[in-house]
């Protein structure tokens, strides 16, 4: 099995073949999986942790688990979901123990942001600031849906929660974004949101 020259996405079947090879002890397959997933995981984790060292630590911890437990994979989910689920759990554990990486508290305890929406800041910055105000699980759910493009069931599997919890976290994340964007700049909030649902 050849190692891919660069980060590359694999099909479901290729992923399963690679993981089976890893379970048999083929470290070239582990190399291929690592290189295939590094880009996706790095970009996902970089949105949660600004430190590349932390991102790489989480990725390597993830693939240590993949190496050690590939033989335990039973095909109940896609390989990608399984790997990202491992990364998610390691990230949660890692980020909760470190300062300045993620604000996981209730947004009620956070100070008001000082931010000038009329300055040079763009929509990306406004949303980035607002996302930083979200509790960790809500932000990760939004990242898994919008950045990684996962379905409700996939996020449920990755996070180990019922689909209803996934939808609830996303609902609250959207509502909190709505609350925080006005604080960050009324122009952005007006541009993005209209009235919430009357339910």
């Amino acid at each position: 099995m050849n190692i891919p020259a660069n980060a590359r996405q694999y099909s479901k079947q290729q992923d399963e073949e690679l993981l089976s090879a890893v379970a048999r002890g083929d470290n070239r397959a582990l190399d291929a999986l690592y290189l295939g997933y590094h880009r996706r995981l790095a970009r996902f984790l970089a949105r949660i942790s600004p430190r590349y060292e932390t991102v790489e630590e989480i990725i390597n911890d993830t693939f240590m688990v993949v190496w050690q437990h590939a033989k335990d994979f039973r095909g109940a989910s896609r390989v990608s979901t399984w790997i990202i689920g491992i990364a998610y759990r390691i990230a949660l554990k890692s980020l909760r123990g470190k300062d300045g990486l993620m604000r996981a508290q209730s947004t009620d305890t956070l100070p008001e942001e000082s931010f000038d929406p009329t300055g040079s800041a763009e929509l990306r910055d406004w949303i980035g600031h607002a996302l930083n105000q979200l509790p960790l699980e809500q932000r990760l759910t939004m990242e898994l849906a919008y950045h990684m493009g996962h379905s409700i069931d996939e996020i449920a599997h990755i996070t180990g929660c019922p689909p209803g919890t996934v939808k609830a976290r996303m609902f609250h994340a959207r509502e909190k974004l709505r609350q925080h964007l006005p604080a960050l700049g009324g122009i952005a909030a007006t541009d993005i949101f209209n009235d919430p649902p009357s339910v």
Partner: protein
Amino acid sequence: MNATNSNTEHQEMWELLPWLVNGRLSDSDCRRVEAHLRVCSACRDECAAQRRIYDVLSTDKAVEQMPMAGLNRLRQRIEQAERAVGLDAPSDPACPPDPRRAMFAPRFRVRAAAVAASVIAISVALGMPAAWRWNQARRASGAYHTVTTETARHPGEVIRAVFAPTATLSELQAILDDAHLEIVSGPTEAGVYSLSMTGPQSIDWSLRRLRGHDSVRFAEGLAPAQASAPPP
């Protein structure tokens, strides 16, 4: 449809909007949400808002990518773990060896040898007889080393690095010049070079320069105490 049912459906459709936006709803749910959007202006507005957020979040963010450096560290970590298990576990004929332990170590050694062969070729071309002798002595000792193994420091050594096997002599020299570094020792049998500073810049600055080159597979600074330790 009465008001309660309408509100329930509205709530349900509202919750599904993010997955309409990211294209991951089932076909049946997609049809239901789209039908609801035709009659609900609030959900249409929310859908447009979520689409804007999705557009921002789904856009790739520039991230420093060093997959090979990370992969090298993972390989070392696995090899160390496998060796630890191998050293700790007595041979048991009733318990067959883990195939991963049997397969990984020989292959890693082959790869390390390939890397070593290429960097040795570079080192000879660079004219580093001292480094060659040091490397041969290490090789002859038969000891196991990784990049992070504690070994004697060389005067001025602040960084250890591994370069791509395909790196040419001129590329290697250009990288070192760019990072204001010079070789003080190496390569080891694993292809590790010990580097010292040639300019007034910080170690972190040189590390960043090194890591910016595709041909640099690994680059780590030594801890200050280690960096200043005298040679044996």
